[in-house]
């Protein structure tokens, strides 16, 4: 498939397992250091589509000792649709001043109609923003959590343990996606939810690398635990 890259398949896994003295749950394991190196330079600001180790961000079923490594929202580009719609709709009444299409509406209804119109624009913009804001993909040191705000009535939360991840791939399709570096991240798991798809993820190769490195860390921990 053009544009689709499978970065790390299960066959390619080479965890470079270090046995012996390496502490299983060490916060500064080689893999973890590698993860921090990968996400070095990623902002901690809330309004960014990619946030590393956020200070003021938690999610509902996060355990107390579960540390968030990365929060991924959709690329800013996806907001262009509702922004442009809102701008065009806001400009429409100015255009209608020149066109007598609403002259049949009684004069006393026109201000209320305008108020209704601008309220509708606000609703479109607010909904667009909420859709972006609450659609988050969270990578913690134990699992990945995908929170989807589908529309006003539907939301979906799915998660998968890092050691259940089997394959991480991503695809970048289209001119805008290639130019701005965003794409769909596909995570296949051995868990209850076989596949997680994160659409319009910014910097998908970096996120995939982070996931793979964390998965290797989990594997190493599991193996050391088993040997002990």
């Amino acid at each position, binding site marked *: 498939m053009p544009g689709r890259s499978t970065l790390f398949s299960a066959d390619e896994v080479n965890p470079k397992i270090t046995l012996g003295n390496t502490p299983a749950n060490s916060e500064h394991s080689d893999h973890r250091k590698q993860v921090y190196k990968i996400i070095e330079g990623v902002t901690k600001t809330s309004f960014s589509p990619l946030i590393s180790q956020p200070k003021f*961000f938690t999610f509902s079923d996060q355990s107390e000792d579960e540390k968030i490594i990365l929060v991924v929202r959709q690329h800013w580009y996806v907001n262009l649709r509702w922004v442009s719609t809102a701008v065009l709709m806001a400009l429409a009444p100015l255009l209608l001043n020149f066109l007598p299409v609403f002259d049949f509406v009684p004069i006393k209804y026109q201000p209320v109609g305008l*108020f209704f119109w601008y309220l509708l624009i606000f609703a479109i913009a607010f909904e667009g923003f909420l859709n972006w804001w609450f659609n988050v993909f969270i990578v913690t040191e134990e699992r990945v959590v995908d929170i989807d705000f589908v529309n006003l009535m539907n939301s979906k939360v799915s998660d998968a343990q890092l050691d259940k991840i089997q394959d991480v791939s991503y695809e970048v399709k289209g001119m805008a996606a290639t130019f701005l570096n965003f794409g769909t991240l596909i995570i296949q798991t051995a868990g209850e939810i076989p596949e997680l798809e994160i659409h319009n993820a910014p910097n998908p190769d970096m996120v995939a690398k982070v996931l793979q490195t964390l998965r290797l860390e989990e594997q190493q921990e599991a193996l050391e635990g088993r040997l002990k």
Partner: protein
Amino acid sequence: MNLNNVDILNLIFKAFFVFGAIIYFIFASIVVRQVQLMTTKVLDMYNTILITISWLHLLLAFLLVVSTLFL
């Protein structure tokens, strides 16, 4: 009671506006509820602002209903 054409047109517009405003008010209430639910799932420092905006939006929707009723 005699209704002329202008009155009938006014009534039609009023019914249309009131109905639209009520539907919008219901929509704004759902937005408030949804924001409340989502802010319990994703906790961020800006959630209070989003909740406030959704309530302000509901208030404006209520004002819209009132203004259409008294036209």
